């Protein structure tokens, strides 16, 4: 949610740069071709050369860090194909196994007599599920809780568990399974934008969504209490999306 405007902006920028680049290329390229024809084979071709096409796909398009994915491309009417992201010049059609360290947008450019064509594919790379370090007997429950249990966050006006929250809750469930003595209270919190009454109810639903998920992961329901604070106990008091996102959370407290 928070990231999306940035993402959108950068994608738009990228698109704009590419469009203007290819627009320039199209304008310039016919002229040398015409000169060629005038010098050598005037009769060889009066029809314009067909424009090249290219497609580019990544399968799967989302991976965890360390995993790999396959980039495939196909082009027609191209004299050369180049792919960004450290791949370079490649054959007209083919595939490559890649393992990017971070999310990357790959751009394939086909150059031909009839102009240029561009295609792109995005590979999203997410951090792997945190592997809880083996517990040391020397670490107290409180210190363990502090290190291992993470709050989860929600979308605007939502109480469903999204992908990020799911990862965090799976990790929390593993940690709680390792320390059966720990009991938690899950507090439901909201940003300030709804009404107070509505937010109190929404906070309750958030806390319970988190609790239900932990129970589905095998945690004893008796170990988990919930309480809703609605918008009464904000973590951040500024009025911006960053702050609001921080306040839309299920907050874990050790009892």
């Amino acid at each position: 949610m928070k990231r999306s405007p940035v993402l959108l902006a950068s994608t738009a920028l990228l698109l704009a740069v590419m469009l203007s680049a290819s627009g320039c290329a199209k304008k310039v390229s016919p002229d040398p071709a015409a000169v060629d024809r005038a010098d050598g084979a005037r009769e060889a071709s009066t029809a314009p050369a067909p424009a090249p096409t290219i497609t580019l796909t990544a399968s799967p398009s989302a991976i965890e860090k360390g995993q790999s994915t396959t980039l495939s491309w196909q082009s027609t009417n191209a004299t050369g194909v180049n792919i960004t992201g450290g791949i370079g010049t490649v054959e007209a059609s083919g595939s490559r196994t890649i393992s990017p360290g971070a999310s990357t947008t790959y751009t394939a450019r086909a150059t031909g007599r009839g102009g240029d064509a561009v295609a792109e594919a995005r590979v999203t790379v997410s951090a792997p599920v945190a592997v809880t370090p083996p517990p040391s007997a020397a670490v107290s429950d409180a210190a363990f809780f502090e290190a291992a249990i993470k709050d989860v966050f929600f979308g605007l006006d939502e109480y469903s568990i999204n992908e990020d929250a799911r990862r965090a809750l799976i990790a929390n469930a593993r940690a709680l399974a390792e320390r059966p003595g720990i009991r938690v209270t899950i507090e439901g919190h909201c940003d300030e934008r709804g009404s107070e009454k509505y937010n109190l109810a929404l906070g309750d639903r958030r806390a319970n969504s988190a609790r239900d998920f932990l129970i589905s992961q095998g945690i004893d329901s008796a170990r988990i209490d919930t309480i809703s604070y609605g918008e009464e106990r904000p973590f951040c008091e500024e009025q911006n999306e960053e702050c609001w996102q921080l306040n839309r959370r299920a907050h874990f407290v050790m009892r």
Partner: protein
Amino acid sequence: MPAKIACFLLLVFFSAQPSLLTQESSRVTLFPKPAEDLILAVADVQPAPGNAGGELASALETFNRVLYDDLSFAGFFTIAGRGFYPPKPIVRPETDIDYEAWDSIPFKVSFVTVGSASLSRNVLRVETSVYDMKQRKRAFGKAYTGDPGQVRTMAHYWADEIVYQLTAGTSRGIASTRIAYVSRKGDAKEIHTMDYDGQNSRAFTHGGGLNLFPTWAPDNSKLAFVSYRPNPEITIYSYLDGSRLPFPMFNTFASSPAISPDGSEVIFALRTPRGDPDLFISRLDGSNRRNITNNPAIDSSPTWSPSGRQIAYISGMPGQIHICDADGSNVRRVVKEGGDADNVAWSPDGRWLAFQWKPRLSPRYEIFIADAASGAVRQLTSGAGSNESPTWAPDGRHLAFQSNRSGSWQIYTMLLEGTEPRQITHSGNNTSPSWSGYFLRD
């Protein structure tokens, strides 16, 4: 803590019921309707002959100011501006009212309220009357006796009497009603009550926890609210002696209580095993609890129709206004334009639902009213800040609400038309107003 409240409330109770001896209720003036074209002049109450002194002067200064504010906010009369009044002070109205002089000012005054006061041995006595300027005679009057500290209450009583008499008993004044609200104290939120003009504010809870969403029993005998113990629980206190009524704790999530018009039942939101809050009605002791709504969505913020046969409430994400019958059947949506609504309040005359609403694409809440029968919507507030949590005065002509237009959350009152907005709290952070019913007196 309850004992503390009890002591405290006893004090409040006795001081709020001053020995305002009321005498001589005179003839009733009849009008066919609340006369908006009726012009009322509010002449200052004067020291009675032989009475002088700073203490009386300052008491009368308060009395005259409060009376003027009450009557101009009543919404029934046009108040003639003081600058036009004939300059002669009216001490003995029989001789001091110069009818010719009153007739020559630029508007036709229908009635004038006058009075005189004395102070001896710390007993303030105010004698007030209303004169009929057309008939050129006294219409009605009253006398109030009490401690000088009660001078505001005296003025409120007299303002209410004037409204009652000049509307021929079709309306009672709201000047002696109170408003319950939530006041933030650091991390805590406490229930307070204050006069309808924001004065005379007192804490009702002192626990230091979170107390939210107060509502009055319609006869003012009780306050119901949400109190964290440690989960949000339905909490009902006697307003008369400050004792807590027994009500079951649910240890999950309970919110937004509202006591029925006949005072026998309470409706509230409670989390069901399915995980979402539904509405329930029970007796005031929690017995005979029954499920009213069964949505797999958030149901919240119920309000009773004056007859007690219908419930308006909020349901869904975001909240939409619905009405169902008090047996839970016959659910229908009232406002069909979408958006995000909450804190619906049914008007005492049954005609309107007031609520806060953020229409689609609108950045903040404003106060709206909808015709309960047709769903037609009218906007009451606009401009700066977010305006939320409307509550009706018992006369159905005034509303209170919370707004952050000043930079912090404060409580405001206004007329039903959205006019005459007044900020009545000024410091700290005050929210969730609930206007009381009429207090019985005389």
